[in-house]
């Protein structure tokens, strides 16, 4: 559930296994879909007159239709060009007129692969956004972020988060994650859904305080969840006057 969002942390930790596996599975699925689309368009574009006939019920017949007409999708820009290059090399429209036959073939293939890769990345991004919109709609979404400033008086070890007295996450921080936070990274600690109305957020911070002593502090915030998404930030700061860390929960209006 948690996911690191780093602003300027190139050496930050990689995402969690859950996100990696979901992402890679999505990538694999999207790649397979894109390849299938390309293969489908190539094979169906070869006999142009015959394939267009029964294109009403079967799935492979309906898929190539937008590809050959190059209508709206992102794949339309790349796939028809390749299909045209393979099926009708002679009446190519101007671009490859004076070139030899071998060179356009290899460069065309490279461009096609690049186009497919771009399509996969775009598709993956769209799917990720769609997944977030579906799982966490804006009217119920609550996101809790964590940021760490300076950190001279507190070495973060873990954060436990409770919403309405129910534990929603208990996150352990590794030295690399703390380092990334100290460099200015902001972590999305929790993303969930809440009903409209009053709620209470309690956060317990554990770690090493001044003089390397075990240190545990809590902070709480009562907030009203409206119809829009709610963003809260747990902020750990150093209070220089008291030589103590300060824990604050901010409501991003």
């Amino acid at each position, binding site marked *: 559930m948690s996911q690191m969002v780093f602003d300027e942390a190139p050496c930050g930790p*990689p995402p969690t296994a859950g996100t990696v596996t979901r992402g890679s599975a999505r990538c694999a699925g999207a790649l397979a879909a894109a390849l299938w689309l390309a293969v489908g368009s190539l094979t169906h574009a070869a006999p142009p007159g015959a394939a267009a006939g029964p294109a009403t019920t079967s799935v492979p017949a309906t898929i190539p239709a937008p590809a050959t007409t190059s209508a709206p999708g992102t794949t339309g820009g790349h796939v028809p060009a390749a299909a045209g290059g393979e099926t009708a090399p002679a009446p190519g429209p101007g671009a490859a007129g004076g070139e030899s036959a071998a060179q356009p073939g290899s460069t065309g293939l490279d461009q096609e692969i690049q186009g497919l890769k771009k399509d996969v990345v775009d598709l993956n991004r769209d799917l990720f956004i769609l997944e977030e919109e579906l799982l966490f709609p804006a009217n119920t979404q609550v996101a809790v972020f964590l940021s760490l400033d300076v950190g001279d008086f507190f070495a973060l070890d873990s954060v436990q988060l409770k919403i309405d007295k129910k534990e929603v996450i208990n996150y352990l921080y*590794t030295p690399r994650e703390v380092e990334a936070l100290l460099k200015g990274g902001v972590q999305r600690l929790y993303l969930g859904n809440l009903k409209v109305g009053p709620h209470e957020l309690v956060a317990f911070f554990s770690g090493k305080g001044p003089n390397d002593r075990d240190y545990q502090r809590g902070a709480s915030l009562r907030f009203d969840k409206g119809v829009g998404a709610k963003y809260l930030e747990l902020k750990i700061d150093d209070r220089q006057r008291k030589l103590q860390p300060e824990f604050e929960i901010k409501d991003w209006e």
Partner: protein
Amino acid sequence: MGGRCGGSGAAVRGRLERTALALCGLWLALAVPPQSDAAPPPYALIGAAAPDFALHAARGGNVRLSEHRGEVVVLSFWSSRCSGCRTQLTALSRSFATYRSAGLKIYGVGVDDDAAKALSFAKSADVDFTLLLDPEKSVSRSYQVDNLPMTVLIDRNGTVRHVLRDYSTASNGLYLQELRALLNE
């Protein structure tokens, strides 16, 4: 009808004897333990992505598995009550000293309920790698630990590749063989 009734005493007795014998046979079949050389059930996580976790280390700090993508990771599950675990951890420590520079990470995951016992065991264990504490057994549950000591080998892509469910000289040889293969990939 009457003849049948007259002769039914012996028949009923015979039927009862047969039933009793069958029940005895059934009871024996159920009571006899299975052969010890029966193969253990296949490990379900082989070929699957290793479940990610973050645990406290016995010497302080936390460890997250996903931060070690790109390295070969060995997880060894141990307990302070397990007699063979100490021997195995020592053997793992030797392999860690040998292959550390080749990108090997070894973590011992303690599954003791009692954190104090696990801590004292971890402090007394003479190993160079990090020992982690899993008193809630969330990690051992996700790795389906059914025997101690148990060793799981994870490749550089984060996929579970091998599991060793005991410790012996033969299994240690197999472990080294599989470990070398993973490090060479």
